[in-house]
């Protein structure tokens, strides 16, 4: 079989970082090639080179036997390449259909042909999800829905090479399966597909071959999936053995600490009540747009509740006052890293100390550089954040490492309740298991951990108790022992016949 | 005409005290004689034309204007004709496409060059009184060439100095960025720096504010009031500030032009023209008056202020 896409000793150097070091591998037409590797291994960088967004320092990309040099994204698009990026790139105030056809809208007599546009958009969306109206504005969609739009964008172009950079990180299982059937279809039509993911089970399900990256180099390529196991992959990625990434640890629960009562607000369709005890990890599961993020924002005080209360150890919190939540030890690690988490043009250190700096400071005003530096170093070490220095700007870190920095920001606080909204999205297996361990130890020291995730195995593996949300309300509660994949999914899926 | 008579009074720089006063006196005439004055600030050509339209729309029958640019004359005349409005100019006289004044439009004013010459004369006279030697005296001309009038004022003053044997090499141009005191201060400072040996300074500029700024600059360099002759233009509050100070300052005098005549008489003439069909004289030239510490009160009363 002929190699459709070929990387030939591609290297990319950023100041202070060698992101890619002489990468060579090839992908056949009609096959799905998985890219695996820790955070910061260089996967996204490679895809950006493929898409013309970066120009490689050396080496070249060959497509269909011809060496191609891209001077911009337009060249790559013209060469039949579509890349779905890890960070979503949509225009918020334009409609779904305009976003889908951005850069190549259909024309009639030189003017935009809206009718054709809607039709094309509707078709592309239909194969992924019937729920998105092509006329809605992106701003009104949930992250999951936006991710679907991003994927549909690539489908519309009918590209020869399609690269997915963690496309499922905010999709529910149902959407993932739909996506997979779309990928299978593309594969059948002879497309060359690159697939980046941190979810190993997906990789086994969809990929024909795999390349594992570490520190910008290829560790190993696997062409034969049948001989491959989870453990082998993990060992190659992380460089060490991880037996059970969840490695659940039993622990006693103390008295009730967080109590949410009849909370209502935007995005919720019924009052939400739940409570969490000291030492407990409470999981929240739901499909895209189930309302988990909105509920967490209400609990944290980032959004104004219509009614209801949040109390910690019996003390009622000041509604919609983030500062007071944090001072009372209630913190939220937000879902949308790019928009709500990072300060891209600030250093790693400034990002980590953003909130806790007030505690280190003298008179709450003059900052204490010594303490801040010590705190930064502690977390760079503890969470093994991959950065050349603590002064590096956050925008130059890989997606996963950015997530770790935000985690460090909240772990620096003196917390009693921590809400983690999709904390492992885009995080590699090794770090994931580290994050679980951190969650366990937080719980062991008597804190409440609220853990929102769209990954069912993760929720089942880590949570002591699982609350399931569906279309804006809490629809069920399962203890660790009763919870199974089927039971949870049954609660999460829309009722009767709609599926 | 039916209904009360209404005339427009358009000025180029409505923020300037001078024009505020013109308006005030035009209003006074209106009150006394029973007509309405519509006051519009028209800072550039486009605003002038819009204002004329506006006047026509509200039924005015004529207007007095100090144009932001004398070369606008033809288009103003044309517009006025189209809107059937009588027009006369004040302060600045219209200039036709041939570069000559448009004689057909009645005008009241005093030329900017004339004002400048008055300033120059006042300086020369006072230099004689103080007995300064030309060789020890420098002149700071705080200039603002962006404005035609400002340029003419400067040239007027310089021409008189030249005629009176003030060496051209001792007249230093100090271009300012803004026509306020701070602008005058910074511009003058540079000249002072460049000529540290000069003992006496004479100062003139666009208006009272800039001269005042330059005087402040000389004070900052340790010059006493006796070594500085600053003559401003306008006779506004700024000059009054200086004259009211307990001790004399380098701000020696200002050329006061009477906003009363310009405001009151032009408005009244326009009214007569409309009411009785009596066209005003084609050209009325007013005189500026030199005002200083000692004669301030008298001059003010004489000018009707």
């Amino acid at each position, binding site marked *: 079989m002929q190699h459709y896409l070929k990387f030939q000793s591609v290297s990319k150097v950023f100041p202070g970082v060698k992101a890619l070091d002489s990468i060579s591998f090839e992908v056949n037409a009609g096959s799905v090639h998985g890219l695996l590797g820790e955070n910061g291994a260089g996967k996204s960088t490679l895809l950006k080179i493929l898409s013309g967004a970066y120009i490689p320092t050396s080496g070249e990309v060959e497509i269909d036997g011809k060496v191609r040099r891209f001077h911009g994204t337009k060249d790559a698009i013209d060469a039949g390449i579509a890349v779905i990026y890890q960070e979503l790139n949509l225009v918020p105030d334009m409609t779904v259909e305009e976003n889908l056809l951005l850069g190549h809208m259909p024309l009639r007599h030189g003017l935009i042909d809206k009718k054709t546009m809607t039709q094309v958009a509707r078709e592309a969306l239909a194969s992924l999800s019937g729920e998105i109206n092509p006329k809605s504005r992106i701003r009104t969609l949930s992250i999951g829905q936006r991710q679907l739009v991003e994927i549909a964008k690539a489908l519309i172009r009918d590209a020869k090479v399609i690269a997915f950079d963690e496309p499922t990180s905010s999709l529910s299982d149902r959407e993932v399966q739909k996506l997979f059937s779309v990928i299978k279809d593309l594969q059948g039509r002879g497309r060359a597909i690159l697939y980046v993911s941190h979810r190993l089970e997906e990789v086994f399900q969809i990929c024909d071959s795999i390349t594992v990256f570490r520190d910008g180099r290829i560790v190993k390529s696997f062409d034969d999936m049948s001989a491959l196991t989870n453990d082998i992959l993990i060992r190659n990625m992380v460089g060490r053995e991880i037996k059970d990434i969840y490695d659940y640890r039993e622990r006693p629960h103390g008295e009730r600490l967080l109590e949410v009562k009849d909370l209502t607000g935007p995005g919720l369709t019924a009052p939400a009540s739940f409570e969490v005890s000291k030492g407990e990890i409470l999981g929240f599961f739901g499909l895209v747009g189930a309302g988990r993020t909105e509920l967490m924002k209400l609990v944290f005080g980032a959004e104004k509740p219509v009614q209801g209360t949040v109390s910690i150890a019996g003390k009622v919190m000041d509604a919609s006052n983030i500062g007071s939540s944090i001072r009372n030890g209630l913190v939220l690690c937000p879902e949308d890293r790019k928009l709500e988490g990072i300060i891209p043009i600030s250093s790693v250190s400034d990002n980590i100390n953003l909130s806790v700096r007030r505690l280190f400071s003298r008179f709450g005003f003059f900052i204490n550089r010594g303490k801040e530096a010590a705190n930064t170093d502690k977390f760079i070490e503890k969470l093994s954040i991959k950065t050349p220095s603590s002064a590096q700007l956050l925008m130059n870190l890989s997606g996963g490492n950015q997530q770790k920095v935000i985690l460090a920001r909240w772990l620096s606080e003196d917390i009693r309740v921590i809400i983690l909204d999709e904390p492992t999205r885009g995080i590699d297996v090794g770090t994931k298991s580290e994050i679980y361990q951190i969650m366990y130890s937080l719980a062991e020291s008597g804190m409440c951990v609220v853990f929102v995730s769209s990954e069912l195995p993760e929720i089942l593996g880590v949570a002591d108790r699982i609350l399931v949300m569906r279309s804006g309300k809490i629809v069920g509660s399962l203890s660790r022992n009763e919870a199974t994949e089927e039971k949870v999914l049954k609660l999460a899926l829309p009722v009767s016949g709609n599926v | 005409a039916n209904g009360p008579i209404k005339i427009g009074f358009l000025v180029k720089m409505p923020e300037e005290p001078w024009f505020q006063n013109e308006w005030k006196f035009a209003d006074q005439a209106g009150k006394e004689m029973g007509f309405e004055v*519509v006051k519009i600030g028209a800072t550039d050509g486009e605003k002038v034309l819009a204002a004329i339209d506006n006047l*026509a729309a509200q039924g005015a029958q004529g207007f007095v204007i100090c144009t932001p*640019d004398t070369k606008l004359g033809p288009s103003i005349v044309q517009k006025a004709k189209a809107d059937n409005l009588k027009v006369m100019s004040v302060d600045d006289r219209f200039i036709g496409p041939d570069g000559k004044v448009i004689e057909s439009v009645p005008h009241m004013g005093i030329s900017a060059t004339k004002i400048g010459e008055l300033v120059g004369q006042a300086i020369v006279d006072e230099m004689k009184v103080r007995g300064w030697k030309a060789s020890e005296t420098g002149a700071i001309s705080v200039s603002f060439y962006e404005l035609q009038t400002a340029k003419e004022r400067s040239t007027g003053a310089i021409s008189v100095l030249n005629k009176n044997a003030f060496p051209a090499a001792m007249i230093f141009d100090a271009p300012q960025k803004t026509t306020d005191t701070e602008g005058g201060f910074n511009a003058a400072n540079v000249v002072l720096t460049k000529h540290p040996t000069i003992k006496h300074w004479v100062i003139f500029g666009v208006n009272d504010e800039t001269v005042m700024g330059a005087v402040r600059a000389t004070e900052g360099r340790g010059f006493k009031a006796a070594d500085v002759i600053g003559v401003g233009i306008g006779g506004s509050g700024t000059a009054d500030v200086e004259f009211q100070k307990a001790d004399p300052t380098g701000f020696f005098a200002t050329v006061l032009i009477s906003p009363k005549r310009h405001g009151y008489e032009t408005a009244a003439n326009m009214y007569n023209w409309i009411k009785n069909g009596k066209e005003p004289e084609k050209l009325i030239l007013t005189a500026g008056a030199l005002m200083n510490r000692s004669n301030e009160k008298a001059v003010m009363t004489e000018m009707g202020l």
Partner: protein
Amino acid sequence: MSANETVAKKNVLKGLWDNAGMLVVFIVMFCAISLFVPFFFTWRNMIGLALSVSMVGMVSCTMLFCLASGDFDLSVEAIVAFSGVTAAVLINLTGSIVIGVAGAILSGVLIGLINGFIIARLKINALITTYAMQQIIRGVGFIVSAGSAVGISNSRFFGLGSGNLLSIPIPVIITIIVFIMFGILLNKTTYGRNTLAIGGNKEAARLAGINVNRIKIVIFTLQGAMAAFAGVVLASRMTSGQPNTSTGFAMDCISACVLGGVSLSGGIGTILGTIVGVLIIGTVQNAMNLMNIPTFYQYVVRGLILLFAVLLDQLKQRKSV
């Protein structure tokens, strides 16, 4: 049945308010002024009003594109002045109106091109670039004209600014044509949609293969051309080219756009809104002059109107989210 109808009615009203809140405000304001300010609602005054907003109207169209793409242009006011002077000088020199007009517009194109190149390619902030350009062009205008107005000898040139067609002044007609043209450009062409996309999310536009730089350069070039054209019309109306005219004109255009709901952070803007913004500014100024409101108070009123108008728009948007 009747309850349903009320709901339907309510929805229509709400839809109108959401889509054209400023239009409603303008209409109410216009009616009130017509009722209470004598002479306002007369044919003459309407023509005068239209003439007085014609320049801001023209340039607001290109400014809309500029703002919608997330940029700024402060240089337009200097371009207006400079192109007037250029036209005057060239017409006097060659005696040819065509050369004069072409030369003036070409100068605008050139300046816009330089603006666009610096902003798009060299990635310098638009505010600073166009502010610097404003200074430079103002200076060149002063140098060329020696600081004073340049009278135009060929009187046939004045027809452009002072002529009428069906008793509507030609500048007004031009402005209406410009509005229609740019309305189509914004809504019906890829150029318009791509402009909005760039303003909404530059990175997304770039990754979608849109040549962001080229579009930005086109935006600024068009803006330069339009400002130059407005300058030519002005010179024709004024029968001379004036180097110091139109100070504050750029902020007038930006204010009009903002009043019309154009977002200063880019990505949002409609031509209808811009028209309404232009009309609000013109109407308020016109009414204040008719009412003989003293200049100093006019400053205050203008500022307050601007503030209240954007406030209202903001409130509306907050509700509809």
